[in-house]
């Protein structure tokens, strides 16, 4: 389609481009600039070049934050997708009971992060929480879900999965209902069992839905802040200091705008790489299908 005037595409793009410039490109440019200074908002900024980047990379701190965030993302994305898909397949049935269960599972998604985090803090209290009572009743050892550096990140991932699985389930349900029933009937006539039908009919047709769920879960997991702030404050022993929390901590707790900006720039680059990888995977899949 050829525009009647060369200005028209720019006019169409204008509003969103302006919003992007104001809320994304300018702040990002400012962050990149700030990252070259040691600055606390109150005293004179001092130009330090790449020292802020060196400081966050030193002693493997950046690598640890990145590793933790990626680990958390892997757990959240794989957990929410697997559970969401499983629940969608199990609950894709008519009737009031199934509708109630679907609604109950989805309800966690609409509750605020703060409420969810506070609820789980109470449930997981190592002395008085429900989890502790259950462990004691089963004569199992005490687990510091939020206090053991080896368990805290997994616990946070579990809470996040609990919260967003309802969303994944609903999207998968929509995907399942778009799969033509005739394909299943034809496969059944050919003698295909439930597992074979899922493997060869449902799953290939659900792949775009899965890609969508995967992308949105990845975004949620990379943006994790509320759950960290309320449940662990980044601890114990920094075991749950994820990227966004680390940025917050640097600027608001440690008064270091430069270092927070350097982290924000690295965070942006990491997201660019992940987005590119996802786009590449998506394109190769599309090309494969066309062939």
């Amino acid at each position, binding site marked *: 389609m050829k525009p009647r005037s060369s200005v028209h595409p720019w006019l169409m793009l204008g509003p969103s481009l302006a919003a992007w410039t104001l809320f994304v490109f300018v702040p990002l440019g400012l962050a990149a600039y700030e990252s070259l200074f040691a600055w606390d908002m*109150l005293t004179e900024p001092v130009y330090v070049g790449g020292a802020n980047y060196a400081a966050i990379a030193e002693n493997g701190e950046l690598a640890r934050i990145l590793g933790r965030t990626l680990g958390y993302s892997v757990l959240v994305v794989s957990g929410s997708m697997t559970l969401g898909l499983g629940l969608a397949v199990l609950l894709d049935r008519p009737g009031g009971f199934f509708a109630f269960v679907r609604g109950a599972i989805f309800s966690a998604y609409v509750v605020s992060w703060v409420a969810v985090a506070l609820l789980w803090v109470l449930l997981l209290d190592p002395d008085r929480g429900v989890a502790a009572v259950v462990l004691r009743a089963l004569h199992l050892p005490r687990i510091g879900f939020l206090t053991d*550096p080896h368990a805290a990140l997994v616990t946070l991932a579990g809470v996040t999965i609990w919260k967003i699985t309802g969303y994944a389930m609903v999207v998968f349900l929509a995907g399942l209902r778009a799969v033509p029933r005739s394909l299943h009937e034809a496969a059944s006539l050919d003698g295909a069992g439930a597992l074979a039908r899922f493997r060869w009919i449902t799953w290939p047709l659900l792949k775009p839905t899965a890609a969508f769920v995967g992308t949105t879960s990845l975004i949620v997991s990379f943006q994790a802040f509320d759950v960290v702030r309320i449940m662990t404050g*980044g601890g*114990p022993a*920094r075991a749950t200091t994820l990227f966004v929390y680390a940025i917050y901590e640097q600027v608001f707790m440690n*008064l270091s705008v430069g270092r927070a900006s350097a982290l924000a720039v690295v965070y942006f680059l990491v997201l660019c790489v992940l987005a590119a990888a996802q786009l590449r995977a998506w394109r190769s899949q599309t090309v494969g299908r066309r062939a």
Partner: protein
Amino acid sequence: VSARLSRRAFVAGASLASLGATGGCKRALRDDHGRVRLRLWFSLGGRNREVLLEIVRRFHATQDDIHVEPVYQGDYFESLAKLRTAIAARAAPALSHVIAEVVPYLARASTLEPLDGYPGMRGLPFVPALGQAGAFRGGAERPLYGVPLNRSTPLMYCNGEIFDRAGVRPPTTWSELVDTAKHLTRPGERWGHEVPISWWFWVAMVGQAGGAVFDEQGRATLGDEAGVKALRLWQDLVHRDKVMRPPPGRDYDAWNVVNQDFLGGRAAFIWTSTAYIRYLEDNARFPVVAAPLPRDVRHSVPTGGTFFVVVKQAPDAEKAAAARFLRFFCEAEQAAFLSTRTGYLPITTPAVDTMRAAGFFAKHPNDEVAQRQLASVEPWPWEPNLFRVERDIVDPRLEEAVLLDRDARAVLSEARALAARPG
């Protein structure tokens, strides 16, 4: 300078835009009754908050020129983050309060109003260890920036019932602390000792082991050998002796856990702040016995709590109103009221005298212990870097070192190297 201006302009612009979006416009200096509106940002919760608000109410009852508008801003660190941002955006309240360690930093940034020039502010009779003059090395030679609000020191609290039953006395030395904790620990049921893994208590131990976190030249030495010794004591109590629980949570979450474990009989003796004397006494179902922190080579405690500060950029009328409120706050009656109701230390000598004359210390021996321990106060260095070293460098490493049993010497040398660099 231009870079700084552009950044400040950006922050100010963003703040103005958000104020505009919420229907804000230039704030009126006076209210409908012609009184100066004095904004006060505070971070006290529970009973401390009630006491502060009662003092504000009393102030209103004494005069008609000033109306104090107190606004709660979260815990000390959240409140500081907001104050700093508000100062950068030129939207800060005239009066706020901040933890002691941050006063030198804010003063160096020229954000605080020197208060000596305001009527009656020079020569306020502060308890030496708790006012700026005694709470900081060289604090007397500097303009008066901070007026003590709620001041405290660490204190040891023992469960009187457990101690009586076991026939032991509160430990007075580190080795007694270890022995007592071992003696009183019941695995799976009760910890001997508990203390928040936090800078404040570690600084106390560094002092007790004969060190200081900054030397006279202003270098962050982190106590050198004394720092290592203090950290190792914690590591041994947690990992080798298994008689101390490192409480979960950061900052005041961990403090709360320590208090709850003590009140629930899950910890035989704890270290926490004098600020909790009333709270622990009122809520314990056993006698609470306070004792000075034990010594290694000497007794030593840092001071804690907060100082009122007046923001330099506030309108003159508000700053004058703030000074007037502070004078009222420092009167013996108010200072004694805050101390008797909370457990924070009385900040002026007339307040101490008033309390003593009323027989308060005779009736409350735990408060008397806190008073006596003031003789062991180690002043903070007047170092703008102090707060950064505490929050950014040492505090997170202490928790890591204790929980993961890291090499104490290596952890502190790394921290020292980081402290030597610009922030």
